[in-house]
């Protein structure tokens, strides 16, 4: 990998590279140029904005926790075992990455909704998910889970099993090996996966609006608030968009650090 630096790259490649970079950076500049700075703080500190930001941070933290609780074991199973149908299972688990979030929302609706697959069971247990903050967390976890699985599975495969084998031959039980060797070894990958999952949760829109609805302080996260504000107060929508951009930039900064700038 490090050998490539001495070879150099063809000069013409800078042209399409620059166009690509401009394509991504220019809209962000355009967005920033539309912000009414004189009202910026009053726009982003309005009741509805603050409620949306708080809700977004809370639900994204919870969905990231779900991704860690269930995504890490999934990544370990996918990376360290082999069984029949594993590649199909992997494709299915990664599906939310490429699926339009609206489709995810509809699928969740027919699973956890009142008339859904589990709806009746949940109803009997007195659990109502539709229109609740729980629905937001589920929608976010659904779309963010693959980020955790992909990130960690890659790290697990790259790390190899040498140390795990050594630990096992020294008499460590599988759980001890996992806890003392594997997890510390792949911690950067796990952290990167968690941060990516958090970022994806923060930006979740389609599945949330389809599955959870939109009510201030309950289900209306920051992206939903931005989408709604466009109708009433476009300036507020622009200001809030910039807030999300800043949060996204911070998140990318966090991801780059633990992996030494590899991502």
């Amino acid at each position, binding site marked *: 990998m490090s050998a490539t630096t001495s070879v150099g790259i063809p000069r013409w490649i800078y042209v399409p590279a620059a166009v690509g970079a401009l394509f991504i950076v220019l809209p962000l500049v355009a967005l920033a140029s539309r912000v009414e700075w004189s009202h910026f703080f009053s726009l982003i500190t309005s009741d509805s904005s603050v409620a949306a930001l708080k809700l977004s941070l809370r639900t994204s933290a919870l969905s990231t926790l779900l991704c860690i609780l269930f995504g890490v074991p999934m990544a370990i199973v996918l990376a360290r075992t082999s069984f029949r149908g594993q590649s199909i299972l992997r494709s299915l688990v990664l599906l939310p990455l490429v699926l339009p979030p609206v489709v995810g929302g509809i699928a969740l609706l027919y699973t956890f909704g009142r*008339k859904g697959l589990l709806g009746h069971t949940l109803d009997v247990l007195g659990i109502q998910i539709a*229109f609740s903050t729980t629905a937001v967390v589920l929608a976010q976890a659904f779309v963010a889970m693959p980020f955790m699985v992909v990130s960690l599975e890659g790290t697990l495969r790259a790390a190899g099993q040498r140390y795990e084998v050594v630990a096992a031959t020294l008499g460590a039980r599988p759980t001890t090996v996992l806890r003392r060797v594997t997890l510390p070894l792949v911690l950067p990958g796990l952290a990167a996966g968690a941060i990516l999952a958090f970022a994806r949760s923060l930006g979740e829109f389609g599945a949330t609006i389809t599955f*959870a*609805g939109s009510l201030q302080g309950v*289900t209306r996260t920051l992206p939903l608030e931005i989408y709604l*504000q466009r*109708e*009433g107060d*476009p300036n507020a929508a622009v200001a809030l968009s910039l807030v999300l951009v800043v949060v996204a930039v911070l998140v990318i900064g966090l991801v780059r650090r633990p992996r030494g700038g590899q991502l």
Partner: protein
Amino acid sequence: MKRLFGILAAGLLLTAVAACGSSSDSSDGAATVPPRLKLTVFAAASLKGTFTEIGKQFEATHKGVTVTFNFAGSADLVAQIQQGAPADVFASADTKNMDKATSDNLISGTPVNFAKNTLEIATPPDNPAHITSLADLAKPGVKVVLCAIEVPCGSAAHAIEDATGVKIKPVSEEQAVTDVLGKVTSGEADAGLVYVTDVKGAGASVHGVTFPESTKAINTYPIAALAGSKHASAAAAFAAYVAGAKGQAVLAAAGFAKP
């Protein structure tokens, strides 16, 4: 990876070619006898069914004209027109958004009101919460979905609440009337406030409950040809067709009231 790149490149090329195709299309309009004139109509989402039908009729009676539509929320459409979207006609679901376009000098002539719409309660077909009146929506435990106040159906719902004193506590305030309808047809919500035309359009998938207080908020739909149109006469003809007898017949069949 290489293959993926190839597919992406091919896709980009196709889009570029398509873009060239459409731009040369509009410059053809300058010729003496335009072989095919493309009229772009920006219409409120609630007009999708009726305007698609009216568009077909218009094409049949106006040889050489193709009508294409952009259906979206009225506020979105105004924003797009303000940003220079190539539209010939604008039909709004409320006068507020048409006023925005008028005050920005985007309209040619004066807008004509062509339809009216009122709200109706929609429930799932079995009406699980036994809704029979507007007051039933305020009962505790009833899951009601409304439009957010920022969009026309939401401000109409709000006006009715204000006029009647019935305070509804919705479980969700949706972005568009179609989202409200979706929550009702899927059975997630017990009831929603949508337009009369939405209930009619949804057929057997919802049960409609009319309420006398709905007259407290009536949405008026205006239509106008746009100042930026390259096909001014065809644009004006389409607006007149909607407001005329043929257009009115289609609108009335869908449940719209006369303006």
